[in-house]
């Protein structure tokens, strides 16, 4: 597809033509879906959060989509791994590496737009089936204008040992960032996936603001297990709407490990629906804000079948003037007998100007269940700081140690080695900022 630097002013009248130009290589069924999403886009509300002010002017009137061409040979880092790798910068696929052994087993690891062309029968039924595009502007925007993302398909019974790694690079001269990914795990399959969102260097001068709408959809067949890890490190000039959602079948399990370190304002929602008996959702969120960052994170577990299980942990650190709102929502619907749900939220504020709210919410419509929650938010313990300094640690080293200690029980429990190390690296970067 030919891209040249241009600014598009999109209106309800011309949006169909612009879609055709921008996404010329897409199959007609996909273009039809894009048109449908963008038709709804104009009338939909901007997603709002009670405690997070978002510049509605910016996102409320997004009609200008600029795009600069992305060269094919960007020398962006690719991790060393024996597993599969997919690296992308906007619509440009930089690297696709699928180990031969996986291909033989029928595992598909490719970019989502290629998959839409090559395996429409696998993609079309799932794409957009987990997240409702008509929910709000950010979802419609992503559904209509997503530039590319990952597609991972694991056939029944296949277990992938080495982590699959996806890298989504935002380039500094791009004012829009709309990745979309889809993960489909058939019965009794298992995979580890690490999904990175980072800034890529291409030597261009950065635009003043970027709007990101990022989406991940997951479908788990019975008995499937997905270990999903992600680290978000977009620049503070980016305002991001992030939406991850999973539908979990009988006795399947999803393990979310998400680290949020970047963006200026991030409004995210991670929602898991346990729609068949015995499905499990285990979610860990680590977030760290500095400067004037603002993280508003909703993590939702919906128990819609008997004997479903969820654990949700949110652990965050805010420094400088950063603010966070972490809301854990456990919804146990009628009929979800014998379900078990726990959530725990804990935040630490390193400065008087930082703010961190932790809000657990339990919506329970069934008697025969177990549900528990705990939440705490507090400033750094001054007595502990004095204690460490009295042993010779500088204030900076003492704060670092307290933060490490605060996060260690959660981060050290991340079972994916690479991810655990990278989360620590990201934490270290934020602490020393």
């Amino acid at each position: 597809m030919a891209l040249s630097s241009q600014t598009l002013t999109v209106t309800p009248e011309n949006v169909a033509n612009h879609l055709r130009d921008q996404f010329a290589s897409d199959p007609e069924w996909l273009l039809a879906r894009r048109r449908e999403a963008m038709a709804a886009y104009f009338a939909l509300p901007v997603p709002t959060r009670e405690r997070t002010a978002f510049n509605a002017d910016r996102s409320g009137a997004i009609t200008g989509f600029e795009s600069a061409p992305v060269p094919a040979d960007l020398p962006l880092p690719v991790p060393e791994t024996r597993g599969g790798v997919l690296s992308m910068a906007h619509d440009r696929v930089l690297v696709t590496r699928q180990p031969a052994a996986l291909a033989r087993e029928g595992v598909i690891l490719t970019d989502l737009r290629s998959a839409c062309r090559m395996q429409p029968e696998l993609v079309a039924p799932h794409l957009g089936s987990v997240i409702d595009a008509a929910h709000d502007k950010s979802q419609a925007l992503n559904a209509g204008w997503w530039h590319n993302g990952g597609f991972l398909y694991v056939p029944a019974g296949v277990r992938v040992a080495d982590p699959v790694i996806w890298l989504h690079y935002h380039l500094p001269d791009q004012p829009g960032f709309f990745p979309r990914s889809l993960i489909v795990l058939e019965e009794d399959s298992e995979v580890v996936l690490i999904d990175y969102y980072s800034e890529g260097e291409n030597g261009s001068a950065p635009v003043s603001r970027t709007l990101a709408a990022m989406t991940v959809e997951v479908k788990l067949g019975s008995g499937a297990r997905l270990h999903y890890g992600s680290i978000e490190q977009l620049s503070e000039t980016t305002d991001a709407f992030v939406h991850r959602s999973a539908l979990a079948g009988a006795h399947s399990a999803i393990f979310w490990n998400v680290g949020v370190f970047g963006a200026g304002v991030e409004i995210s929602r991670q929602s898991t629906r346990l729609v068949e008996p015995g499905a499990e959702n285990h979610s860990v969120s680590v977030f760290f804000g500095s400067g004037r960052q603002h993280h508003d994170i909703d993590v939702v577990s919906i128990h819609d079948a008997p004997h479903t299980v969820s654990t949700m942990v949110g652990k965050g650190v805010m420094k400088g003037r950063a603010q966070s709102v972490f809301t854990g929502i456990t919804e146990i619907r009628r009929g979800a007998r014998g379900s078990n749900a726990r959530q725990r939220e804990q935040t630490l504020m390193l400065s008087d100007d930082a703010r961190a709210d932790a809000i657990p919410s339990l919506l329970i419509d069934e008697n025969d269940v177990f549900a528990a929650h705990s939440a705490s938010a507090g400033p750094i313990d001054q007595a502990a700081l004095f204690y460490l300094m009295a042993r010779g640690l500088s204030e900076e080293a003492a704060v670092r140690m307290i933060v490490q200690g605060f996060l260690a029980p959660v981060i050290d429990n991340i079972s994916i080695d690479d991810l655990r190390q990278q989360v620590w690296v990201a934490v270290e970067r934020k602490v020393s900022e």
Partner: protein
Amino acid sequence: MATPVLVVDDLHVAVDGKEILKGVNLTVHGNEVHAVMGPNGTGKTSLAQTLMGHPRYVVTQGQITLDGQDLLAMRVDQRARAGLFLAMQYPSEISGVTTANFLRTAINARRQGNAVGLKVFRDELEEAMDLLQMDHQFANRYVNEGFSGGEKKRNELLQLLLLKPRIAILDEIDSGLDIDAVKVVAQGLKSMVGPEFGALVITHYQRILNYVRPQFVHIMVDGRIVKSGDYHLAEELDAKGYDWVRAAETISGGA
């Protein structure tokens, strides 16, 4: 290295605007053990925390020097790296940080880039734990988290042994220790005393002093040291109680 000397000169300290120390004078050299005794609430902990530099205690008058350096001009961590150590009456818990990691970080903080080798550190740590009759498992537990009162106190002494300060202040290191533990801790402390180490032991009890045998005993009442003497002063105090000191103070018209 020269023998250390801590000098407290006419120290006045206020907390939340209220004067708590009202002119304390004290000099501790290497090779010396000083004991400070006194009724509850007379300012012993305040003295200890002020020496270490706790921000809550505001020095309104007087001076403190360590080896001639002005301690009041130094931050808490600088004082520690200069060789001052405070074993606290109520040690903090540091969740998520193992005792071993904490100790190694603290040791390295004063070695300025010349980090201690892992093996050397482990050996020293285990030797010190053996001396204090501590289970080696404590090294892998989070600092003071879930420690009993006595275990916390032992952990304070463990840090002292490993950090090898020049002057140590021990604020009620013996409170909460069982009688055998008092002996163990006292012997640990004694093992440190020498030309390069001096200590100020704050206590309510004669027992620990029986083991450490301080050369100097000071009695603090209402923010001042009202009486100083040798080891026998502690025994006399034990027999006669504080009223005797207060009465003597009144007769002599105050210190």
